[in-house]
């Protein structure tokens, strides 16, 4: 019987299936961070158990760390305590840990792939919903709760029921100024925030095939925002080339043998999916969100929807300080955040730098650019991107989750409007009362320069008529 890639990976990781029950599902790679792991280690210790496979775990500190003066002790005592618990737990259980100050520290979903710890065919979990990012390599990667972190620590397995499968096909060439972030925001706007609940998604079609690994990661990252358990892309030459350049990926003969296996990782022709959708790449324009979940998105030239009956819309717009039918293009913004595991990789920073080169940030805008990892930061400096940002009046900060969830000091103040490259625009996500508009790094940097919601020149030119009708 023909099988989907997901089915193949699933079947090869089942240790045992209970009659009419869940499967014991084997996990190859476990990433951990300071926020969702302490209670798991504590649970293990209370039961007097050891970590079962410490060599399959990678740890880093990212959610709770400052993005300035990382060489100094963390000021907030609660954050400092969480980070030091992680340090202690890793030391005690022999877990590889990239702490603040290490050359590989960074957001967990940025460092895993860039170091070559994420490989095709793997099953990957982390106590973080954006673990779906790693699916870009052809993995079953998904977020888990802390009880499950404890299960994986103790047994390298989880008890799971198999999700349904869905394929999202996007074909064609993206228009100028349209990035992979716009593709995923477009998909989520179409499906809604719960549109893929219970499903694992495969992204297929020429549009994804043409994407770089970083672009694919941006797409897979946000799978969870439409409720999907995860999302994946079949590995191809782009994937293999990316892995070949990582410090810890397989080398030499090992690499060649791996590629042979990785090449088999694709859905069979006629493999049955429970749900399938098709999108034409040429229908996608730069996207922004207007509401308080990632499904509330429009293309930047459209107006905020009007639906008198929709209580959710009403509540969201009230929170956002927006009116039904309002056009957002040209609306003044206060903050711009370029960062998070969605868009903080070197290609994202290059896009921002290229746009801002020779221009100035608008005076009234506070703009934070936060690289996803020490490696991204280093590369950006080698390429002189930090200087370009500095000349434009923007300071590049140090790696971490930062204003994506505002657990550290990087909070957007109440009532302020922020164009953000992160993945969630929930109420209060970027700080109490903060108002978030999700967008691509290109749309974000354009907002920083123009001081208002704006986007790539090519997209503006292409939609000149709607731009004019907005300003009239």
């Amino acid at each position, binding site marked *: 019987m023909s099988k989907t890639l997901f089915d193949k990976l699933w079947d*090869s990781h089942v*240790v*045992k299936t*209970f009659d*009419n*029950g*869940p499967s*014991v599902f*084997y996990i190859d790679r476990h990433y951990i961070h300071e*926020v*969702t792991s*302490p*209670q798991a280690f*504590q*649970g293990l210790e209370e*039961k007097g*158990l050891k970590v*079962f496979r410490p060599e399959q775990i990678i740890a880093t500190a990212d*959610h*709770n760390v400052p993005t300035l003066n990382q060489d100094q002790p963390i000021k*907030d005592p*609660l*954050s400092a*305590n*969480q980070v030091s*618990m992680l340090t202690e737990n890793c030391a005690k259980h022999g877990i590889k840990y990239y702490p603040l100050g290490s050359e590989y520290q960074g957001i967990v979903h940025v460092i895993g792939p860039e170091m070559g710890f994420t490989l095709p*065919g793997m099953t990957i979990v982390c106590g*973080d*919903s954006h673990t779906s990012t790693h699916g870009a390599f052809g993995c079953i990667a998904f*977020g*888990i*709760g*802390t*009880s*499950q972190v404890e299960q994986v620590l*103790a*047994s*390298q*397995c*989880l*008890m799971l029921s198999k*999700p349904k499968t869905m394929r999202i096909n996007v074909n064609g060439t993206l228009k100028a100024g349209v990035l992979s972030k716009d593709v995923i925001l477009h998909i989520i706007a179409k499906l809604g*925030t*719960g549109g893929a*609940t219970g499903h694992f998604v495969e992204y297929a079609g020429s549009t994804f095939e043409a994407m770089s690994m970083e672009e694919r990661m941006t797409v897979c990252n946000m799978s*969870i925002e439409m*409720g999907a358990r995860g999302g994946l892309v079949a590995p191809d030459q782009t994937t293999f080339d990316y892995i070949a350049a990582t410090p810890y990926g397989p080398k030499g003969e090992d690499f060649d043998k791996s590629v042979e*296996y990785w090449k088999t990782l694709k859905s069979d022709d006629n493999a049955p999916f429970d749900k399938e959708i098709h999108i034409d790449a040429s229908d996608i324009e730069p996207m922004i969100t207007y509401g308080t*979940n990632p*499904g509330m998105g429009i293309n930047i030239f459209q107006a905020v929807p009007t639906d008198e009956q929709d209580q*959710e819309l009403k*509540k969201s717009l009230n929170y956002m300080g927006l009116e039904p039918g309002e056009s957002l293009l040209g609306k003044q913004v206060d903050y711009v955040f370029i960062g998070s595991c969605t868009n903080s990789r070197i290609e994202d920073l290059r896009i921002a730098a290229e746009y801002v080169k020779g221009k100035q940030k608008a005076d009234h805008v506070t703009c934070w650019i936060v690289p996803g990892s020490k490696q991204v930061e280093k590369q950006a400096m080698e390429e002189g991107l930090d200087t370009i940002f500095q000349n434009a009046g923007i300071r590049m900060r140090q790696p971490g989750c930062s204003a994506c*969830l505002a*657990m550290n000091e990087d909070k957007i103040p109440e009532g302020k409007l922020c164009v953000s490259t992160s993945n*969630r625009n*929930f*109420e*209060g*996500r970027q700080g*109490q009362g903060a108002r978030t508009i999700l967008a691509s790094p290109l749309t974000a940097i354009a907002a920083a320069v123009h001081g208002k919601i704006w986007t790539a020149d090519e997209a503006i030119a292409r939609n000149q008529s709607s731009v004019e009708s907005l300003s009239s």
Partner: protein
Amino acid sequence: MEKINQIKSSGIPLPIEHIDTDQIIPARFLKSTSKEGFGENLFRDWRYNNAELNTDFVLNDPKFKGSILVAGHNFGCGSSREHAAWAIHDYGFRAVVSSEFADIFKGNAMNNGLLPIEVSTDYLQALTTAIYNNPETQIEIDLQSQTIAFEGEVYNFEIDGFKKQCLLDGKVEFDYLVEMHDAIEAYENNRSF
């Protein structure tokens, strides 16, 4: 984990769709390293306007009491933080009723003795209306027979058979997994890739 089977209580209505885990427990309260005490900050930014109690919010309305939260569609979307399930349980809820739950939240809830009960949109609407009309409305949940009932309106809900048994027995998945080390080792040794 405490065994769970029957729950009989009035309910608290919160008919908002897509309630995400950032609302259930905002990130700034995730700095604790224990599982206790999160109930205090459940729905923090809806319960309070800064430091002041928001008297419009249902949890601050003395009319509504009980250990069953009756929420809107797609409850618990967003972050994987189990702190959301801990907070709801710690506050005193033992079941959440909705027409759909986000996958990770659903798993987290069941791992902590909190019942996620999925009903049809119509049933959810009827239940919510009944509670608004009479906050004393008694809701009866019976896990063994997989039923929820109020004012004679009975609904048969679905639940994963294995999870159900875990909840009835007060067992957690963990207990099964740690007994399986031999099988897991055998799997590791037999992998062909």
